[in-house]
């Protein structure tokens, strides 16, 4: 099968959906500029014109609200934020309006909008060019949140997000843009709410989101040399989350490590830990371990950045700690 990069897979999804459905349009800062959105918007302006590929002034609140309003009258807009950090100006239209709208009007009106935020960090960009706020949005009823980690899913989830009749936060990661993978030429969608097993294993479940899936797979390859079988689950959708896949895996392995690209406190790993405790507690042989960003803003200096971002080594270490633990008899060991 033909291979495509992650960013061009997103591009292909946009081309195909805009071709197929005249109500789909792209709006946001930098849709004309690769500097902002990489090559995800390549060729769209030339093919569909400025009416459907709308580059905008720096007005995230109004522009996101515009996308939401257009969705209310039956368009299927995709509003792009070149960095998730910039979306903070748009919290009212995303949360107070879009997320609540269908509910607070008793189902009389719906919001088929895709709110696309690009995680773009590293390179000493520091705190305001680095954030991955998927947990914020997952917390809010009425929003769906997807995070593809492969080119196949990048295209399929963008298609699914556009087709969904609800507001979907599509969060991709610039660190994945050059990743190549098999991407079918035809239009297809990946179901929202379904995760996927990237590597099968019986010793421990390793659940990851977005870029952390790449590091998790690397970690599991390293651990394989120690005769450890790690089952890597790529959530793909953070909300709704594939609970069945998760619980079935834990029933098999009895151990869980979560690798998430957000901060520790109140992040996705905290949510998954709670779900597991509520549903498959009796299968657990050890407490759940989390690998996340520390509770600190992203630093600029390279040395600090290296310490800040977890990688396959950090994940592999967490797996080893979890595997060393015995089932406690009375009392619980406090992990270091």
């Amino acid at each position, binding site marked *: 099968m033909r291979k495509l990069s992650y960013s061009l897979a997103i591009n292909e999804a946009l081309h195909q959906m805009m071709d197929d459905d005249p109500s789909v*349009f792209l709006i946001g800062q930098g849709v004309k500029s690769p500097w902002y959105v990489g090559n995800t918007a390549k060729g769209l302006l030339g093919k569909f014109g400025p*009416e*459907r590929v*709308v580059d*905008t*002034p720096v*007005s995230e*609140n*109004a*522009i*996101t*609200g*515009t*996308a*939401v*309003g*257009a*969705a*209310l*009258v*039956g*368009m299927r*807009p995709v509003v792009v934020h070149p960095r998730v950090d910039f979306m903070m100006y748009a919290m*009212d*239209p995303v949360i*107070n*309006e879009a997320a609540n*709208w*269908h*509910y*607070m*009007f*008793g*189902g*009389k*009106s*719906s919001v088929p909008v895709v709110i696309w935020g690009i995680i773009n960090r590293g390179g000493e960009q520091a705190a305001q060019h680095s954030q991955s706020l998927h947990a914020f949005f997952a917390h809010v*009823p*009425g929003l*769906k949140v997807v995070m593809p980690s492969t080119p196949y899913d990048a295209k399929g989830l963008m298609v699914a997000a556009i*087709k*969904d*009749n*609800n507001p979907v936060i599509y969060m991709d990661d610039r660190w994945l843009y050059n990743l190549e993978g098999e991407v079918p030429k035809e239009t297809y969608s990946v179901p929202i709410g379904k995760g996927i097993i990237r590597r099968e294993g019986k010793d421990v479940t390793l659940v990851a989101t977005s870029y952390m899936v790449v590091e998790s797979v690397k970690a599991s390859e390293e651990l394989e040399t120690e005769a450890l079988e790690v089952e890597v689950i790529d959530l793909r959708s953070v909300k709704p989350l594939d609970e069945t896949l998760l619980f079935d895996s834990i029933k098999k392995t009895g151990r869980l490590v979560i690798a998430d690209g957000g901060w520790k406190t109140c992040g996705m790993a905290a949510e998954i830990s709670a779900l597991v405790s509520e549903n498959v507690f009796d299968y657990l042989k050890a407490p759940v371990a989390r690998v996340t960003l520390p509770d600190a803003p992203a630093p600029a200096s390279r040395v600090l950045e290296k310490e800040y971002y977890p990688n396959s080594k950090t994940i592999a270490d967490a797996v080893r700690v979890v595997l060393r633990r015995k089932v406690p008899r009375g009392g619980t060991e406090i992990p270091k």
Partner: protein
Amino acid sequence: MKVLQSNYKNSANKRLFLQMYRAMVRIRICEESLVEPILKGEIRCPVHLYSGQEAIATGVCFALSERDYVFSSHRSHGHYLAKGGSIKELVAEIYGKEAGCSRGRGGSMHIIAPEMGMLGSAPIVAGTIPLALGAALASKIRKEKKVTVSFFGDGAAGEGVLYESLNFAALGRLPIILACENNFYSTHLPIRECRPENNIFKIGKPFCIQSYRVDGNDVLKVYEVSKNAVGLCRKNRGPVFIEFVTYRLRGHVGPDDNIQGTHRDIRPKEEIEKWRKKDPIRRFEAFLIKNKIFRKETLERIDREVEEEVKGAHEFAKESPYPNPNELTKYVFKEN
């Protein structure tokens, strides 16, 4: 602008005047009918009464067709009714019943009549302005010549998103009428404590937007300026900013400004008296009778019909069932 008033003997205009009179009276009697249930505790949700501002909703909505769109804020009952929303569904919603326009999920601050083009109202100040922008943008993309009106108050002139929206609307010559109802108070704060310049319409000029300031208690003036604005928008010569000068007869929320149980209006007595004399319905009635367009008896007959209609709406609401508690989370998402 004087054309309509001087052609008042024309039968088409006579019909229009009677409809306008009925529309304004309907709003007033409906709003006033909510006072007693609020004081008795039968209505509990916060209600922002439109009494005193009827000429604006009426004059503007009569200049629109059914296909055109309206968005509003917390003080939206007048816009809802003038655009053709069902009075039964409105009152039922305020009582929290399933038969309400938002199925009891929204209350007074989230009312909608999508089939009549009243696309939603929400209390986040200025929150619906960019949504209206989006509806206008959709109309432009689809070449539909639909006009969108965004209703908001003087308080919204403090929000940044209004200025973002003016800028974006002007850039795209969007078919949107920004209708600012200046009643001189932003909840408790008088306008002189909110902005150095009282004339809000001047904010259009820096964005090259045609802007007007109109006596919002003269329904015919409101209608004339609105018709002109609608015409401009349909010819792709929008947007238009209209500041309507008016006064609310009731409290910011509820029947009066019930500060610590005082039931006292925080506004100066002389000011309130001055504006009572400019009551838009009494003025229109005087105009119709003085110019012998209609007799007092005809107008009184309409008053009585409307009273019956409003009474019926309350009966309908009181007899309607509450929502089913088992359906608490029913409308969080729309099915695909």
